[in-house]
């Protein structure tokens, strides 16, 4: 007798040593992944690293060749319905039924999740409000822009109030305003105790959203890192000054290794360990009379790790 689904542990979603190959291609090999409840976990990796395959397995659409997946402690194979109720999945392909309206799509999905019929219209209206599609609720989905369809897709993934949310590239195609909204919404959902998995390429975004990141490459988990850890391992700053020579001279005098960037504007970049270091350096430069015109992180903390991994790969 398998474990009672009535008393689930709220421990998010995890995969242990999962492998999946398609013919000769080993899409995922012995990958470990854990997304705890109440946290946003980023899934980061280059194209073809196995992110989508992993998400499909987590969404219980694809069976792993080996390894196990548990959702709130439940095995998708034995507790199919229980697991499905707990998972909200937003695919990277925007599957919308073009001739249906946003309201109809959400209503249909709610019915497929067997939500109580009486509550469906209200729940749908609520979700449409949440993703700001109320004005377009009764328009056919084909007139929605990509970003709006993306938001509809998110509403669809959330309609049955899942405890695990799997988002495959949720930010692609969103305008900056919607990105900020998405970020706020995901933080809210995490605060409600949901475990959220986000795969994305927009790494600077993930810095703001994610509590932790899992880096995958070539079907393997390369590194698991919290955002704080990533920040602590140093970050590249870009500095530009009105007088580039003076800046270079001062940095050399301070004994710091730096790199001249060949961007549009003359700038140098260097790795600083933490925010205190950055504050101290900026103070030194200003006191030395170097006309600093910009001083900012060149990349996000996760991006730094990602680029380092990319470097290791080559």
């Amino acid at each position: 007798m398998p474990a009672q689904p009535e008393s689930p542990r709220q421990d998010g979603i995890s995969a242990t040593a999962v492998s999946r190959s398609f013919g000769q291609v080993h899409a995922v090999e012995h990958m470990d992944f854990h997304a705890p409840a109440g946290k946003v976990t980023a899934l980061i990796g280059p194209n073809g690293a196995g992110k989508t395959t992993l998400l499909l397995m987590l969404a219980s659409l694809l069976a792993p060749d080996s390894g196990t997946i548990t959702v709130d402690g439940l095995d998708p194979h034995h507790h199919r319905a229980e697991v499905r109720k707990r998972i909200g999945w937003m695919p990277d392909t925007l599957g919308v039924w073009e001739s249906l309206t946003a309201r109809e799509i959400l209503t249909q999905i709610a019915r497929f999740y067997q939500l109580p019929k009486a509550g469906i219209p209200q729940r749908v209206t609520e979700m449409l409000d949440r993703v700001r599609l109320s004005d377009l609720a009764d328009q056919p989905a084909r007139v929605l822009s990509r970003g709006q369809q993306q938001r509809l897709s998110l509403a669809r993934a959330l309609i049955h109030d899942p405890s695990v949310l799997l988002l495959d590239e949720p930010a692609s195609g969103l305008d900056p305003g919607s990105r900020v909204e998405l970020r706020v919404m995901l933080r809210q959902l995490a605060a409600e105790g949901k475990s959220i998995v986000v795969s994305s390429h927009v790494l600077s975004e993930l810095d703001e959203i994610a509590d932790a990141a899992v880096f995958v490459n070539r079907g393997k988990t390369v590194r698991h890192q919290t955002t704080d850890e990533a920040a602590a391992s140093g970050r590249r700053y870009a500095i530009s000054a009105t007088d580039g020579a003076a800046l270079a001279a001062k940095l050399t005098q301070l004994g710091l290794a730096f790199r001249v960037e060949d961007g549009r504007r003359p700038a140098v970049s260097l790795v600083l360990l933490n925010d205190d270091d950055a504050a101290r350096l900026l103070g030194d430069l200003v006191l030395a009379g170097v006309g600093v015109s910009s001083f900012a992180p060149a990349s996000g903390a996760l991006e730094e790790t990602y680029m380092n991994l990319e470097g290791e790969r080559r």
Partner: protein
Amino acid sequence: MSQQTDTTQHLPASGFGAGYLAGIRDVVVLELKQRLRSRGWYIMLAIWFILTGLVTWLTWASWDAQREAQSAYSNVLPADAGPGSMIFEVVLAFVLLFALLVAPALSANAVNGDRAAGTLAILQVTLLRPGQILWGKFFAAWAAALAFLVASTPFLVIGVALGGMTPGHVLVALLMLAVEVGVVCAIGVGISALAGRPLFSIVVTYLAVAGLVFGSLIAFALGTGLSQGTIMANQAQYRNYEPLQPVPDETVPEEPEYTCSGPLRAQPAVRTERVAWMLAMNPYVVVADAIPYTVRVNNRFGLSSPVGAIESISQGARYAMAGPEGTYPCANGKAQPRYLAQSTPLWPLGLGLQLLLAGLLMWLGWRSLRTPAHRLARGTRIA
């Protein structure tokens, strides 16, 4: 008391059944909403209606012209039952032809079309079971195809109204057409779940339909060549032709027309009954064989040949099914009826085989829709 216990005991099972059906209904609603909003469907329906109307009118006009020509050049007016039977048969054949052509278009991209649009995985990730998705797609495709039959009903009714046919004919014909369309839809939906690309599955479904319509004939024809055998029969002694003798009773079939005598001898014969099942799978045979017709009696000229296409097809197929044992003159020393009664219908066999094929494809399709998926077709992404 006992009734109450019964209900409580049966609640879980019936609850599951109702839930399962509700899921199918939801999928059907989703599919039909989309179909009802696509203009192509209405355009096809309008073209269908106009074409069927045109065929009906042309059939009627040609019958009328023939009749006029006959009355102009000879004094003998055939005591015909009117154009009803002819219109009915032509329209029926036409409607079946076009139904077989339309049904694959409506069904054969049901699953992989969704897969290509990325909407299949969205259904699969919900609580819907693979069977519910597949049945929902099937019923939606069938319903869409049935609309075409409904559009052609007026013309079949005209066939009745003009005489010679009963409403029962129309009812049976429509029922059989609906079943045949359903078989094609099931084949289409099953193939669409198996094939990766919509174009491929539509072509394969058309080929399957062509296989049923033409392939069954070709296979039967080739098969008969391989079914040579022998039959024990003796000599048939035909009655003398006596044209001037009045037929005593017109309502009693004067069969057989010969008597059998002499020793039984092995005679070469084609054992058509071995390959007749292929003929039975032909949708035209199934429909024609299921439609009732009154057993003809000898007419004034002493002949009892089938009248009309439906009857001819049905009789031909039954002839093949009966094989030489039932049709060869004096097989086993017995005289054979020239006309095979409808008490041994052929269509259940044909329909059964068709349902077997459709069921097999639906089952394979269901297997490919199960999640978590173990095997994927080469080059398909599940999302």
